[in-house]
């Protein structure tokens, strides 16, 4: 059962929308207290994530796709 989903076009439009439409979304630079917590990092447990990717890469056909960057303390 295949779902026809133009993944590339979908992501592209979401990115375009977020760039121009997200002036109101977000927090002030001095309100990153919760986001700065290590548990709120996008990949908060890199070792576990790498090991899991390992395991599922070997046992399943799909793999990867995880991203990086963004969030956090927003410092510097």
């Amino acid at each position: 059962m295949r779902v026809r989903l133009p993944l590339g076009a979908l992501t592209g439009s979401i990115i375009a929308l977020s760039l121009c439409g997200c002036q109101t979304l977000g927090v002030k630079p001095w309100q990153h207290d919760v986001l700065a917590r290590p548990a709120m990092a996008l990949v908060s447990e890199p070792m576990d994530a790498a090991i899991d990717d390992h395991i599922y890469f070997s046992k399943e056909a799909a793999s990867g796709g995880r991203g990086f960057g963004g969030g956090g303390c927003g410092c510097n």
Partner: protein
Amino acid sequence: MTLGLDAVASAPACRRVYQGPLSEIRAPHFRVALILLVAFLGRPPWVVADESLDLAPLRGRVVYLDFWASWCTPCRESFPFMNRLQNELGPQGLVVIGVNVDRNRADAQEFLRTHPAEFRVVYDPKGELPERFGVRGMPTSVLIDRSGRITLRHEGFFLKDRETLTQQVETLLEDR
């Protein structure tokens, strides 16, 4: 660099720390009494009322206003630098003020326990001061000259910029 209220007991260290307006107070006994009173009140050295920051009394001095938070990683580097600035350039009229924007004061105090501030700390949990000063990133330092004008704004703190920052402060101090 870790001089703080721990060193209050030894008088020479005290004098090194409190080189600001206190040094203008001539009566030695009164000065010592004031130092002991502040020591008695505990860290941080100068606890000021929240939020409101009146810079008018500081006219004639150079103000280094720094916006920091306990969760701001580069602030662990900026504190030793600001301590040094306050200690070395204080006599020439520099006042370093750290504006804390933590929501919980306990978090700020935990940070100050491991990274003591040898400068004035102001607490602004509602974030009115960073809003007023147009802070766009953390940390931010704002340099105010002797006539009360905002002359420089630095977003972020980088170790490699310390010399440039010091030179900028010294330039403002030279202008009397």
